[in-house]
């Protein structure tokens, strides 16, 4: 695709270089530590699931058990491997025994280190290979049924009741939706565990549980088979359980997952170090199992002004891209976030939106890009919102965004009712078809408003990135660079779940995933 914006290649290169520096430095800064959530992920990938008598998830029981005993610095895997060798039991049985108070992992004799490692690694390999086989079947299914043409139409369900979510999901599919996202009950981000089983009571969303994912997956596969079109499922990784949700997502055949530590930092007051460590592993898992990640730059524009904050969005996209690549996520699985959030009363706001959307597209030609509808300035007038959504849809199709979250007329009031979803989808349907090739049909006036705006934003991003490269990502967050929110490196929820790795720390999942990348 020929550049429509006539971007300065030197400027682009400078941005990428600064972002790469930020990425490298950030990864270094979070190195040498694991988190309780990552260790629970190890348990989950070894097949540990279910809850104890007090409804505590067994992965939590196991990890807390070791943590209380001060052993988490070696990694849960080591203790499990040792227990497997010592007891001859598989991980599930060991977990059950620990939960029942019948087994103390740290009190078991420490056997041969290599044997323990081998045992747990080979078990992990088998389990992960099994998941991978299911993933491959899923890819085959997706190819067999086929998907709607890009942009994929992404819709969030939020009834709080997974069975009602299925009703909404079917309506979404029926009306051309391609991705059904299960939003979570409010503040699930803050839970340092994943609830268990099917749930029917959530606020502003339905709990992300493995069973809820399974239920929606089954329903959408059924619809897909009956109607000859594959329906994707998505949900949210962000929060205190990033890597674990990545895991249950892989287990239950999710296709996309919102995955952005910054959301937790800025809007849920989660400790920056904790969640960036979690993000690193959760993205690894998403990348490995072929799940597309959606990043959350759109959120910044909900608390900062979209015209002014545009460079911060581009800067964040470039950093997020680096961090995702470093976790082994391939370009086609990186759906960077962007949003149509300029105030509707800004003269020529449409031109700025087009410039920004096109800029994102040209900077990341192989990433799908997840484009979000206007929400911040939407009020109780559904017609006003619908008109904004129409122009939003036009920019989406005109700039070839990969995924579009469908805007709904009641955006400013409540999470959409069933009918609102259909109204939103119809709008997208109309515009995507009626203006199908408009983007390819037009060129921009050289040096005009659009090209100038894109160049300005890119230059702003460069300045920001160079500054961040200098002071570091954490310092930048502390200074309110993103979304006008300031967060300190040593504050926030979940900080106590960060554990410094001991000499002998060992994580077979990460080794397998990193091994696969080298190969």
């Amino acid at each position: 695709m020929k550049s429509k914006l006539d971007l300065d290649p030197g400027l682009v290169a400078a941005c990428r270089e600064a972002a790469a520096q930020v990425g490298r430095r950030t990864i270094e800064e979070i190195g040498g530590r694991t988190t309780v959530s990552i260790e629970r992920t190890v348990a989950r990938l070894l097949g540990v699931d279910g809850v104890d008598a007090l409804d505590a998830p067994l992965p939590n029981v196991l990890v807390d058990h070791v943590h209380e005993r001060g052993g988490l610095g070696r990694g849960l895997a080591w203790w499990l491997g040792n227990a497997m060798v010592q007891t001859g039991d598989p991980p599930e049985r060991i977990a059950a025994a620990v939960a029942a108070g019948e087994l103390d992992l740290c009190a078991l004799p420490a056997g041969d280190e290599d044997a323990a490692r081998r045992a747990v690694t080979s078990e992990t390999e088998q389990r992960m290979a099994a998941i991978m086989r299911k993933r491959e079947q899923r890819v085959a299914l997706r190819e067999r049924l086929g998907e709607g043409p890009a942009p994929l139409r992404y819709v969030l369900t939020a009834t709080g009741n997974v069975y009602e979510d299925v009703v909404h999901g079917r309506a979404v599919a029926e009306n051309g939706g391609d991705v059904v996202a299960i939003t979570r009950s409010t503040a699930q981000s803050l839970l340092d565990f994943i609830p268990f089983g099917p749930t029917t009571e959530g606020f502003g969303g339905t709990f992300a549980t493995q069973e809820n994912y399974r239920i929606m997956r089954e329903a959408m596969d059924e619809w897909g088979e009956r109607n000859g079109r594959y329906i994707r499922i998505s949900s949210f990784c962000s929060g205190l359980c990033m890597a674990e949700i990545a895991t249950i997502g892989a287990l239950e055949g999710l296709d996309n997952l919102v995955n952005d530590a910054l959301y937790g930092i800025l809007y849920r007051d989660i400790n920056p170090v904790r969640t960036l460590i979690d993000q690193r592993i959760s993205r690894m898992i998403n990348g490995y199992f072929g799940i597309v990640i959606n990043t959350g730059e759109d959120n910044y524009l909900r608390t900062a002004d979209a015209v002014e904050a545009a460079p911060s969005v581009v800067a964040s996209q470039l950093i997020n891209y680096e961090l995702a690549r470093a976790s082994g996520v391939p370009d086609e699985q990186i759906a960077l976030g962007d949003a149509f959030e300029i105030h509707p009363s800004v003269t020529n706001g449409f031109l700025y939106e087009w410039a920004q959307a096109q800029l994102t597209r040209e900077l990341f030609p192989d990433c799908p890009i997840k484009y979000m509808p206007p929400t911040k300035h939407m009020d109780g007038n559904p017609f006003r919102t619908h008109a904004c959504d129409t122009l939003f849809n036009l920019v989406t199709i005109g700039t070839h965004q990969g995924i579009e979250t469908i805007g709904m007329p009641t955006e400013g009031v409540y999470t959409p009712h069933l009918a609102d979803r259909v109204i939103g989808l119809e709008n997208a349907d109309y515009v995507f078809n009626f203006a199908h090739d408009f983007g390819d049909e037009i060129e921009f006036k050289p040096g005009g408003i659009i090209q100038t705006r894109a160049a300005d934003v890119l230059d702003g991003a460069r300045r920001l990135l160079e500054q961040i490269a200098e002071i570091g990502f954490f310092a930048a967050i502390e200074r309110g660079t993103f979304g006008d929110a300031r967060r300190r490196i040593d504050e926030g929820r979940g900080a106590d779940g960060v554990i410094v790795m001991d000499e002998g720390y060992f994580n077979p999942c990460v080794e397998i995933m990193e091994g696969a990348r080298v190969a």
Partner: protein
Amino acid sequence: MPDLAPAVDLGAVRPYGDMLDDGLLQLSFTLPVPNSLAARRAALDLAERMGLARAEVTHVQQLVEGYTHFIVLAHCPHAIDFTAIQGDGLDIGYMSHEEVEEFAAAHVGRPIVVVGASTGTDTHSVGIDAMLNLKGFQGHSGLEAYDSFETHNLGSQVPNGALVAKAIEVGADAILVSQTVTGQDAHIRNLTELVEILEAEGRRRDVILACGGTRVSNELAKELGYDAGFSRGTYPNHLATFLVREVAARCSSES
């Protein structure tokens, strides 16, 4: 998969907003009062008068001084027994063009004569043309294409009297009238006038009388003394199904 969504009780159906039985619905209306908190209260009171619960103004806007527009979200406690309505035999199956021809051959045995027009001052002819002309509507040919019908389309702006005269002249089985302009109830006045003329001439019983139009419904038609009414989404075969069954029924009851 076993469907675990809370099961709908068709005996007591309520609006479904976000989930079963939340009863959520939306009202929009303008009140001729100045935009004020008192106006908001008036809007909520109005919802209460409709028997709605927990009404909430989600949008309010002055249109011009003294006129305020509202969008109100409310819970509807009223429930409808859908099973009773379903039993009413409203949803009849329509025959296709071919099926109509076969049915007519078997049960009528002569062309059914219909006279149609868009009457009064209404110049909207697309609706009646869609029903009667060869070209039909969205790929469904009109009655002119049916062997079992003899059609006379008088076009638009036809006085009711002229339509009745033509029906008498050709011995029509059915009079078909289209109405589009509804401003100040123009359609109701005009449709009523036609019935009155027919009755004054003592001809109402002799013909099947049907009307159609964007805002005509079967309910309205019956209320005005018509045998049937057809709205948006009607295809010629729907009309044909109705006519052929009705004529057949009348033939058999006559014999």
